């Protein structure tokens, strides 16, 4: 197999683009896709600081690496979820990555703040761990970025993540979630930062391949809570379709984005936001989801 661009020996085939690349041309492709996402979707500018949500997994570390190589001013944000050994190893990966490159970062530890890790919190609240995790991450990422004066948070969501989430939302016709599934979410309140997904043009496998080629040391293990998760089920279904018909995932998500652009112009929806009575962060209810979660936890303790 030869690189379609320079004829050197190829190391990766990209069936959805009907192409194959050598390491150098592949690296250029990955960087181009990210730059294209940032520029064409007006995610952020050169003069803005970018907070990068880093878990220690391949997607977020690749995102951080490329943004810093492109010369953006970044701040890593890591939430230590306190899920036993898995969280310890994830945190160490982030710390080693940042130390090796001299990149600034902030760690927020759930156990230090609440005396309990995510699994105990979810169990105490009788909530599925992944739903509690979503609330904890969204709230803290926004609050910490805001405190550090960063106008935007970038997350490592890739094409596979977005296609799987879209499939889940469509299967349950969760139309209000569909509106939020765009690579750029503008800030709809002065205390909310913009949320962007610069990796949405890249498949999960492409990001992992780039990490291996660049010798980025990421956590390969999965979160113990994600076993048997709905996301993995949707990804499996999409990967079967993709194997039989390359380009399915890409078309599914990108055609949704095309339709969404016309829909958004027709009816721009702005949520009614006020400030949470307890913490002051923006919320649709009197008390925000995070404070409710933490409040219930205090009662239980």
């Amino acid at each position, binding site marked *: 197999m030869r690189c379609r661009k320079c004829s050197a020996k190829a190391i990766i*085939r990209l069936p959805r683009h009907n192409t194959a690349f050598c390491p150098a041309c592949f690296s250029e492709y990955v960087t181009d896709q990210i730059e294209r996402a940032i520029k064409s979707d007006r995610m952020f500018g050169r003069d803005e600081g970018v907070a990068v949500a880093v878990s220690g*997994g*391949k997607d977020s570390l690749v995102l951080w690496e490329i943004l810093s190589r492109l010369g953006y001013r970044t701040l890593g944000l890591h939430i230590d979820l306190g899920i036993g050994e898995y969280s310890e190893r994830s945190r160490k990966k982030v710390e080693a990555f940042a130390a090796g490159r001299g990149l600034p970062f902030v760690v927020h530890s759930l156990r230090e703040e609440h005396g309990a890790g995510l699994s105990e919190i979810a169990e105490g609240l009788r909530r599925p761990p992944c739903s509690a995790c979503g609330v904890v991450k969204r709230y803290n990422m926004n609050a910490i970025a805001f405190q550090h004066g960063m106008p935007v948070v970038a997350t490592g969501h890739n094409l596979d993540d977005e296609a799987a989430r879209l499939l889940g939302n469509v299967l349950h016709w969760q139309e209000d979630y569909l509106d939020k599934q765009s690579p750029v979410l503008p800030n709809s309140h002065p205390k909310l930062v913009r949320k962007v997904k610069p990796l949405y043009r890249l498949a*999960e496998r492409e990001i992992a391949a780039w990490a*291996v080629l660049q010798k980025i040391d990421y956590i390969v*293990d999965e*979160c113990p809570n994600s076993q048997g998760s709905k996301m993995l089920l949707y990804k*499996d279904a999409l990967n*079967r379709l993709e194997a039989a018909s390359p380009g399915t995932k890409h078309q599914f998500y990108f055609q949704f984005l095309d339709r969404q652009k016309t829909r958004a112009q027709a009816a721009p929806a702005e949520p009614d936001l006020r400030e949470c009575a307890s913490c002051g962060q923006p919320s649709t209810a009197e008390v925000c989801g995070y404070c409710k979660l933490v409040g219930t936890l205090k009662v239980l303790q």
Partner: protein
Amino acid sequence: MKILLHHPPREVAVAGPKKVCQVLRELEILPDTVLVIRGDALIADDDVVGDDETVEVRPVISGG
């Protein structure tokens, strides 16, 4: 050849030499869900793995 798998970590033996894509087919693994790594280098789906070699089949799909 020796194949190192994840989730859970385990080893399986496959007769070689064989192309990477044939190895994956034999193990019933979808090519879009893994990378195949020899030493610390990525190898392509038409590369041949010898019978005396060891490769890692690393999943790329995460549940988050």
